[in-house]
């Protein structure tokens, strides 16, 4: 799959068709900018999160994964660093080592407290209606 993706030209080459991103216009920053500078963006986000406790999703790695992760026929997410998947396809092509996923989840799984759990948690709070699971 990797080579098929890789051969194409124009912006958006690497975006996996089944991912959420495929249906959207632009990345979190202008795509041209992201192609060149995404590492700076997430690196900055990383420090903001770790030291400042700011976990906004705009530049967060979890955000990248969530939007860019591809899905298989069973609608199961495929690891974003898998062969031919978004990060890996591009990084393999450019031979840039990507070790983020040594630690980080490659599919959205047990997101930060706010993203999945808070929804349920919040329903327990007084004055908030319980939401369906």
């Amino acid at each position: 799959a990797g080579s098929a993706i890789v051969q194409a030209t124009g912006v958006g080459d690497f975006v996996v068709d089944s991912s959420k991103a495929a249906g959207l216009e632009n990345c979190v920053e202008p795509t041209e900018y992201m192609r060149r500078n995404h590492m700076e963006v997430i690196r900055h986000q990383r420090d903001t999160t770790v030291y400042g406790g700011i976990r906004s999703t705009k530049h967060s790695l979890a955000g990248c994964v969530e939007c860019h992760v591809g899905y298989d026929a069973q609608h199961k997410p495929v690891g974003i660093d898998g062969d031919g998947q978004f990060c890996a396809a591009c990084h393999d092509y450019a031979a840039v080592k990507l070790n983020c996923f040594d630690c980080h989840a490659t599919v959205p799984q047990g997101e930060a407290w706010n993203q999945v759990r808070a929804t349920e948690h919040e329903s327990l709070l007084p004055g908030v209606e319980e939401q369906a699971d």
Partner: protein
Amino acid sequence: MSQERDREVNRERRRFIGAAAGAVAGSAGGAGALAMGALASSAAGDADAAARTDPVTDRHRWGMFVDTSKCADGCTACVDACDQENGLNLQSEPHGDDEAKWQNQRAVWIRKVKLRDQATGHVTNLPLMCQHCEHPPCVDVCPTGASFKRADGIVMVDRHTCIGCRYCMMACPYKARSFIHEQVDQKLTRAPRGMGCVESCNLCAHRLDTGDISTACADACAAENHHAIVFGDLKDPTSPVRQAMAKQTSRQIREDLELNTGVRYAGI
């Protein structure tokens, strides 16, 4: 699969969460908005009550009070909850490792300790995790500054700069830290983890940062109706933790080191 497990935990949680609910009441709207995936809006004034857009400050210092007399023999709810919350249960013993050694090699953020007084024979139970020292020796010794104390008093490891030298483990008097000895295949988005770095209890920082003033271990203990762990802001006299400490005398483990720990114990 693990998502399902998360949900189950959540269902359980609903039964007991009432106690903590008051503290987070103000955040409900914000948390809800976040859950929709929208961008966090700046929660005016008190940023703690919602996902933050400003860096943490030293207006708070998070800490715990443990009443060892309430900690039940045989209970490990807090340990299990922490394992679930922080993905520690996803660790797997490397093929070929010695079982006993593995117990000593796997990451543990909180452990159940059982003591007997040599004089009286009295048995005490307590949960032991990172004490979030105000003057943390682990931070002092870390060569790269990967071990650090957040402005709000949480001591953590920035695992992007940790080189795995393990000097902090040598320095910590509480054996609170763990080194990841093996490759980790399964991980949660909220708890990244990888071989070669050191980690320890971070007071469930992801919860705090998204506006929830609770930790998995305290919640779990309460859920079991033991209420041995009380979590809160040590700087806020009205916080549950301060109120609990006001009622009982508490001590620090290894008080002689004068680390001014953020976790205090009654009954040791």
